[in-house]
């Protein structure tokens, strides 16, 4: 498997929320990167995880499958997943695959944080 062309930086917003800034290509090959970002953002205190797709350059079906696996892990920890920064193209892919029914999509970081931080 080729080395993933992606970076995922984690920012903590308060005690219970983390934002993962995704830049590059989301494919099945980036699973280790995503899971280590999840570990960095996770922990028992984190109940809300926001994925920032503003830097997303490419995604194939393997990438969507990897997001489903992330969703399962988050659900197991009773964590909510949200996303923002998706272009129209990628938003349609979330809708086509019906991933948007489990990962709430917001227009920007402010609304994503507001939407999940009640």
């Amino acid at each position, binding site marked *: *498997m*080729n080395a993933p062309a992606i970076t995922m930086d984690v920012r903590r917003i308060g005690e219970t929320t983390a934002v993962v800034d995704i830049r590059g290509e989301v494919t099945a090959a980036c699973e280790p990167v995503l899971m280590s970002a999840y570990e960095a953002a996770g922990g028992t205190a984190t109940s809300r995880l926001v994925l920032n797709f503003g830097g997303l*350059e*490419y*995604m*194939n*079906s*393997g990438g*969507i*499958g990897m997001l*489903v*696996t992330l*969703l*399962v892990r988050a*659900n*197991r920890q009773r964590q909510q997943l949200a996303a923002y920064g998706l*272009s129209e*193209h*990628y938003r*349609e*892919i979330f*809708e*086509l*695959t*019906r*991933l948007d*029914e*489990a990962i709430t999509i917001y227009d920007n970081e402010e609304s994503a944080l507001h939407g999940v931080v009640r």
Partner: protein
Amino acid sequence: MTETAGPDKVATADQIGLSAREAAAPPPDTAPSRAAAQAGLPRDSASWARKVDRLEVGHRSGVRGTNVAGRRLTGPVQGFGKMWQKTYRMDAGSQITPEQAIATWRANFPEFWPKGNRFAGALTGINPGDVALLDLSIGGGVKLSTGVFVLYADAESFTLMTPQGHMFAGWITFSAEREGDTTTVQAQVLMRANDPLYEIAMTLGGHRKEDKFWAATLTALGRRLGLPDPKVETRSTCVDSKRQWRHSRNVWHNSMVRSVLQTISAPLVGLSRLARGMNSRTNG
């Protein structure tokens, strides 16, 4: 829920020669990717299907074609049963590139299916947005009629997604990649049984049948690619052992139940049509 007696067509030397020519062809979607890049779109834009709310499909010869039109797509999020990731891998050797393997697979997909099962797709092969109708052998002379949607297709992979009523909710990704000197070809299923009935059926032998089905498919592909003795490795992982009871009502769309009812009622429907025809001739 399928039978796996082997492929409908056995690969001959001529077929292997044909696959070599097919394999020498350029990847099918290089030009659309270039065009997308020039238009400022992501380079994956030509590989994804356009968004659809409900499936639309016309008549295809050789299959019953029921339980697909009007159905919504279902991913693992919408399924009922435990979530499984099942991977079937085959070493395709050093002579075949990933692009060649996928080009052959996409162009001849139905031919690699085990005997007794029908895949009626578009004549042009596997392309994003296509809907294929399936008749799957489930024993007792009954065919399970369902379908799949081509969610994604590029030069090195393609993905099929299932509609409501299919045995499982999820997708199957067929891909090939270079690992050192050899090319590895794989089919990977990410799925949940669509409803409680299917979950029981999968537990009582359905998973085993599915494993045999994809192993037979990969073996047929391997022979077409010229491999003398294709070996398929199977790995199953339970990703989520929880069942999603909120989706238990998916059973309403169950294509297996509907297919059985459609098979039983077919003679009555035929007689009814015949009677109507005779009545209209008498009255006319």
